[in-house]
Each structure stands twice: as structure tokens, then as C-alpha cells.
């Protein structure tokens, strides 16, 4: 059995994932719903819903729309805020063996730094994933589209945490490698790619856009070949590990990311279709490599 695929993964700074398969941010909440449906502790990591300095109500409905092989979402980072996560959610992760990595989003470097500081003393938090690429909030993409801004953000966060810092990259850029190199040089331990692609769906009955702010983020199998191209280019260019995410629906589509050099994977939208997808992926990878 191939350890690389199904053994533990050391992402650095003490973050060791029990295995390569994780649940992508925003598709597993904070774990409490899925914990009732599947055995979370068989998986490697849970990346929480994007968490911000203050609680957010999220965007008005409709927040999702389906496309051919894809899902458009405009959730708008609905979350209870980092303090609530630290005080009320984290204790409930206490006995979990799945590593909980908190995904953080914000409008300014200060926001991110504050969130990271709040989480720093929390033992149940295994790592930080910086979402510099959320297409659904104002300025949500600025950090993700500008290498300098991204580097400044990462340096600021690096200064206040000993934890493994994963930077979640946006694919909606001309040169994702340039952004990645910048955050690597600024002290990121890992990058994860990709976040969603900016997309739109027209409500044909009215001629208006389905989603409240016109566009949303496209995820699901439709984007897998695009995500795979982005991840392959990152794996070629970077020294730090790359986590592959985008359109994984089964072991074969996950294997593709490992084949191009990804160190681990995240399953997102497919969990909505079948909560057991990530477990099936893990089992499939084990078989493939048995």
C-alpha cells in the first residue's frame, strides 16, 4: 500500500494529517453536521467555513444555482465570527482525530491577523488556511489577485503564528504561479488551490441574474480540468506542498491531483451530493495503491 497516498502527510510546523483526504472549506461547515452523517475521524483534515473577525449574516438568497456539472454559490461568508468559533466550536473538536484547519477571510490584513491571534492559543485548531480568494464579498479577491498584497498579508500573519499557514489561492488570475511564489517567499507553509471560478447564471424567466450580486463562484466536476492545470503548474514551480481541490468526485479524479504532484486533496461540492464521497475517495486511493 502506497504510504504517499494513504499514509499520513507532514505539512510542516507540526501539522501532520492522518491521510491525504480533507473536506474543503465551506462544504463541511465546522464539522458538526457531517459528524452526524459520517465517521469524520477516518479523514485527514476538515477545513472550516470561512471565518471572519465579526459574525456575518451572509448574502441574500438565492445563494446557489446549478449549472452543467457545476454549482454556483454566493454564500457571502455567513459565519458566527472568530470569537464564537474559538469559544463555542473549538471545544467540541477536542476529541476529534481529524485535523481541524480554520479557514479565515477578511477585508484587511488586520482582520486576518486578529483572527489568527484569537485562534493561536486554541489547542483544537491544527492549522490556518487563509482564504485570500473569496469571490463573494467586496474586496474579497484583492489579496488573491495581487502578489504584493498577498505577500504582505502572509508576512503579517506569519509574524503572529507558529501554526502551519496554508494559503488558499484564487484561480481567477493571469498568473497563479506568481501569486504562489510571492506567498511562498513571504512565509506560507503550504498553498491550496483552487477556490471557485467567477461564473454567472441567467434566470431565464426574468432575464435577471439568478444570484443576488450577479456572479458567484463555480465549483464541481465542471472545473476539475481547470483546477488540475492550475495545481500542476504550482507543483512544478513551488518548493512548498500544494493541496489540490476542485471538482473531485471520486478516487480517480482525486488521484489526478496527486499524479501532478499535489501533497493532499480536498473534497468540496461532491460532499453535498454524497456526504460519504471523501470516505469513498480515501478507500479508492487505498485500493488503487494497494
Amino acid at each position: 500500500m502506497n504510504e504517499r497516498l494513504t499514509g499520513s502527510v507532514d505539512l510542516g510546523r507540526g501539522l501532520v494529517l492522518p491521510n491525504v483526504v480533507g473536506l474543503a472549506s465551506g462544504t463541511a461547515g465546522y464539522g458538526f453536521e457531517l459528524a452526524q452523517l459520517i465517521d469524520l475521524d477516518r479523514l485527514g483534515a476538515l477545513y472550516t467555513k470561512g471565518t471572519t473577525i465579526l459574525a456575518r449574516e451572509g448574502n441574500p438568497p438565492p445563494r446557489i444555482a446549478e449549472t452543467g456539472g457545476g454549482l454556483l454559490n454566493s454564500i457571502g461568508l455567513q459565519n458566527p465570527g472568530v470569537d464564537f468559533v474559538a469559544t463555542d466550536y473549538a471545544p467540541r473538536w477536542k476529541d476529534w482525530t481529524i485535523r481541524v484547519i480554520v479557514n479565515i477571510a477578511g477585508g484587511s490584513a488586520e482582520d486576518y491577523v486578529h483572527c489568527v491571534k484569537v485562534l493561536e492559543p486554541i489547542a483544537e485548531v491544527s492549522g490556518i488556511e487563509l482564504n485570500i480568494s473569496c469571490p463573494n464579498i467586496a474586496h474579497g479577491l484583492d489579496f488573491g489577485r495581487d502578489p504584493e498584497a498577498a505577500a504582505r498579508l502572509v508576512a503579517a500573519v506569519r509574524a503572529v503564528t507558529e501554526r502551519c499557514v496554508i494559503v488558499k489561492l484564487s484561480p481567477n488570475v493571469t498568473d497563479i504561479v506568481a501569486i504562489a511564489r510571492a506567498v511562498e517567499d513571504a512565509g506560507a507553509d503550504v498553498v491550496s488551490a483552487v477556490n471557485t471560478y467567477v461564473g454567472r447564471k441567467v434566470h431565464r424567466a426574468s432575464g435577471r441574474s439568478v444570484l443576488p450580486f450577479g456572479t458567484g463562484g463555480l465549483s464541481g466536476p465542471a472545473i476539475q480540468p481547470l483546477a488540475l492545470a492550475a495545481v500542476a503548474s504550482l507543483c512544478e514551480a513551488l518548493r512548498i506542498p500544494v493541496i489540490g481541490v476542485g471538482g473531485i468526485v471520486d478516487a480517480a479524479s482525486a488521484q489526478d491531483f496527486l499524479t501532478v504532484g499535489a501533497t493532499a486533496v480536498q473534497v468540496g461540492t461532491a460532499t453535498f451530493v454524497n456526504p460519504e464521497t471523501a470516505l469513498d475517495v480515501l478507500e479508492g486511493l487505498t485500493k488503487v495503491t494497494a
Partner: protein
Amino acid sequence: MTADLSRASLEQGEVLVVERLGGGLLEMVARLPHLAATATPGSFAQLRCGTGTTPLLRRPFSVAWTHDDTCGFVFEAVGAGTRLLSELQPGDPLDSLGPLGHGFTMVNSGSVVCVSGGLGCAPFPLLINELRRRRVEDILVLNGARTAARLYPAERFARPAVPVVAEATDDGTRGHHGSVIDLLVQALGSQPSALYACGPNPMLNAVMRTLLDSGATLPPVLEASLEAPMGCGFGTCLGCALPVLGDGGASVWKLCCTDGPVMSMRDVDWAGVSALPGADVA
């Protein structure tokens, strides 16, 4: 507050019958022992439509009724997913995740009014059956549809004893010529202990407006089953938000899949709900 999903489970069932009721309505019977044993009135199941990636998401359907290890679903082919369901043959597998959702609040006495518009009939047989079990016998169903062929048959709202069903059709082909709303005011005379409604948003909105305009005291239990496009159905994607009235009347979001689909009609922001685009079926 985390939703209670302790009863929800993935289940590979089997289609037993797909019956064409006329007017495009279909009633599907499937062997789904877990769902049949655990569904409560207002529960829904997330059904997989086809095995491919288009349509990608499951589709939510009310559990219309349960009998031994089987469940009934009432639907019509409006888009890609329901079209695939409508093509299922006896013996075909049916992939269900359920039961899901916050259901109807039960009453144990008094009279009950159920207001159904079109496919809003779906949750009522299970609801009426449970009310009967609780010895609530005075049940009036107001059942409206575009035309006679699309009226869910009265005898199917409850077995064996048929409840009182007052019917209305927009085109007057059966029962009252007009909307169920017209029948509502009179029904309120009975001072019902509960009013349950399910149907298109405009109808639900009209029900609430009529109740308020009528000046009658609102029934203690006043609930509607609402709809929203669903990503997951189990409270994780946050995609199924619906506007409800928060403190001070400001509109806040609640999740259709876990806070609902059944919500108190007093809490819903009907203006907000009415402003939502109708489902854009493809």
C-alpha cells in the same frame, strides 16, 4: 445551533411504482425502510436524480406518506432532475438521504385546516395520518390547483377514511372556480387550533395576508412548508437561506433545510419571500 441529523441516513432504495395521476402529477412509491420508519410530518428526502454529474445536486422531496417499509412521493417533471425521476422504472434503485428538515408542530385537539396549492399537497397525507393517530378528527383540506386534472385526488390525502376536502381550480373545471384563498376565510370560522400550508410562495403569501386581513385570531399553530434551492439539505452549504423576521422586524436568514422547511408563518418575511425569483426550471 447545530441541526439534529441523528435520524438522517443515506439509503439505497428501490422504486416500486411510478404512477401517472394525470395533469402531469406523478406518485412514486419506493422501498426505503429507514426513511419510512423515521420520517415525520414535514420531513423531506434528498433524492439523487440519475447517476451522472448533470444534474449534479440531489433534489428535495417531501415524504408524502409511509406504509410499512415504503414511502410515497408526489411530484411532477418540471426540470432535468424531476424528468429523470419521472422516467424511473419499477426495480430501479433510488438513492435517498433522509429524513431531513424541521417538520410540522403537532396538535392533539381542536380542528385543523390544511391549505394545499398544486404540488403543495405532498406533505399532507403523512401529516393527516399523524394527526389522526393523535385523535384529531376534525380536519379540513383546502386543495387548489390550476385545473381539475392537477388536483391531488381527495381520497389520497388520508387512508382509509377520506378527510373533508374542499377543492378549487383556477379554471373552474372542478370545485370552487378560483383560488383556495377564497375558501380560507370561511374555514377560519371553525377557530382551528392549527393551520398548515404548503404551495407556491405567492399562494403562501396570500394565505398569510388573508389571515391578517380577516381580523380573525390567528390559529395557535400557523405553519407553512417552504422551498429553496438546496445544495446539501443538511445544513452545511448555507445555500438555502430564506428571509425571516429578526428582532425589530429586520430581515435575517434562516436555512430552509434545517430551520425549515416548515416554519411558523408568523416568523417568515413574506415580502422577502415574495421577492425571490421563482425556480427556473431547465
